[in-house]
């Protein structure tokens, strides 16, 4: 996903000299294509994310479209007030990019796990929050935020994600994407956990069920219209995120459903159960341990429905 992001950004930066990329001293190897091909639009701000973020705001106010890049919580929580006051409040054209959403950097420990970012960024007015679920969504999201005038947050996985969509027609910020038709149960997914959702879907289908699946590359603004339509039609909506259960994607869906007067569906939120990971492990291991992997998703859905 990060390589897709960089490739897409390189292509855009070649066309648009106002696109700038600033890193907080990370991206060895990953950002190489960018600094090789568009060296005059690349800056290393050093290990200083607060300054990096406000420098980006200052540059944006001078007409640049500035991407800030780091991993885990460094480009977000470390400099949250800079995002709020300096980027969002000024509607500055800053695109905050995090590599390593969720348990991507599982073995590096809790400090490197971005598991509350969606909730925290979603709470800020004038910040678009995106979490693409596969390489196609990553490419489309990168293009979309570059065009969008204002502050955006892009939460990426790391590498090795699959292409799940063949192609996405008419990708738009704020619009969910239907992956599988279905009935009774609809699964909503955001971010890299899409691969677990896909695995769960295949298991459920083999067992004779037919859940619908939608991905939400945009967490904010949430696709309210689609949620309302599905909630009127289906019995159960299941949200899946590699993120704390408090405040994130599931909460955004819950907010929409809670205010509906004519919904049929009930809601099941699957996420990390309001805890930090205290065990070391790779992403796959931690997903299993914290019950957000494919088989946990299957188990939780079957407990609720069948």
């Amino acid at each position, binding site marked *: 996903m990060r390589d897709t992001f960089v490739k897409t950004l390189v292509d855009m930066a070649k066309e648009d000299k106002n696109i700038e990329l600033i890193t907080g001293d990370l991206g060895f190897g990953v950002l190489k294509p960018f600094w090789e091909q568009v060296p005059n639009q690349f800056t290393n701000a*050093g290990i*200083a994310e607060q*300054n990096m973020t406000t*420098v980006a*705001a200052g*540059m944006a106010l*001078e007409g640049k479209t500035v991407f800030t890049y780091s991993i885990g919580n460094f480009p977000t929580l470390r400099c949250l007030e800079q995002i709020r006051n*300096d980027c969002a409040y*000024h509607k500055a054209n800053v695109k905050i990019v995090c590599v390593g959403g969720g348990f991507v950097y599982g073995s590096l420990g809790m400090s490197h796990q971005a598991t509350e970012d969606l909730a925290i960024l979603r709470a800020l007015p004038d910040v678009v929050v995106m979490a693409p679920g596969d390489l196609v969504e990553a490419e489309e999201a990168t293009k979309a935020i570059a065009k969008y005038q204002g502050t955006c947050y892009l939460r990426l996985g790391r590498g090795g994600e699959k292409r799940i969509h063949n192609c996405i027609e008419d990708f738009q910020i704020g619009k969910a994407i239907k992956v599988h038709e279905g009935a009774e149960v609809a699964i909503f997914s955001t971010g890299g956990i899409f691969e677990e959702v896909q695995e769960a879907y295949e298991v459920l289908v083999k067992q004779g069920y037919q859940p619908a699946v939608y991905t939400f590359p945009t967490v904010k603004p949430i696709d309210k219209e689609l949620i309302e339509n599905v909630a009127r039609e289906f019995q159960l909506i299941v949200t899946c995120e590699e993120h704390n259960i408090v405040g994130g994607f599931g909460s955004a869906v819950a907010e929409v459903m809670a205010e509906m007067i004519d919904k049929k569906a009930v809601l099941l939120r699957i996420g990390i159960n309001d805890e930090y990971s205290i065990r070391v492990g790779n992403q796959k291991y931690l997903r299993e341990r914290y019950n957000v992997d494919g088989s946990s998703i299957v188990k939780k859905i079957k407990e609720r429905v069948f």
Partner: protein
Amino acid sequence: MGNKWSSEQLAWKIRRHGIEMTHLSGGSHIGAIMSVADIIAVLYSDVIKYKEDEPRWDERDRFILSKGHAGASIYAALAEVGFFDVDELKTHYQNGSRLSGHVSHHLPGVDFSTGSLGHGLSAGVGMAYALKKDEKENKVYVVLGDGECDEGSVWEAALFANHFRLNNLVAIIDYNHMQSLDFNENTLELNDLGEKWKAFGWNVVEINGNSHDELKVAFKQAEDNSKKSNHKPTVIIANTIKGYGISFMQNDVLWHYRFPHSGWEYDSAVNELHANMPEGVEDIYTPEGIQNPILPTENDDVCNDHTFTHTWNTSYPEKMRRVEAVPGSSAREYKI
């Protein structure tokens, strides 16, 4: 660029508006407004390029008041040079006003909102960097507080500005030696401030920041520095006095938050300004000053020590009170 007022006239007006605005609103930070007034006045009378009828003019110099709590000072200057109506100053802090206590960009002439300390220099650095990349000639001026230099992000910005040789950037530190609760020296020692900036690679100019002549020389020097081959950014360490211009406010931490109340405080402040009024300015609030002013009595709290730091942590094995005010004067007495 208007040159509507001389720096002395503009500084006086900033102080007079500052007294009125905080008096009417019960607003804080008059001490900071007074200490920074001369810096702002010289910038807007002699240094900064702007067009008051075209706030987003591309060739303007950029200005950021990073110590956003002194917002009244820049609001007063912007109104006086014509960005908006002087009458609007009276709405400071009021319901529905554009003039928040801390600086807001929802006002013509303001490039950047501040209020949380330690952000403004980074923003100015970003602007200066983008301007330099695009080979533009504009300068960026950022005024910081000294207490603000407690914030680590200031030093992140200082590293970046030097590394990228932002010689189109001038930082000015309003070094009034006092922050919210006590002197810098008794809060977090900022000693050898100029040396710190030098160590970060900057050109450093140290002056009396309440002297217009010295400020003008310093800004000229910053301009010259921007053409030197070392290409370094310049910081002006402007040694000022908190509350400067109103003798009973000077160097007294009480006036970080207290506003001039009706009675002797307001009357004495206005009349002291009138005693030092430059030619060619008018006072729109009290044109003749205050006749028959109320004067302080023996029972009033004037020029006393309002710091408390020395009462804390007295069992700690180090002496923590390192400087004291000299009551009724702008001097400081160093204890260590």
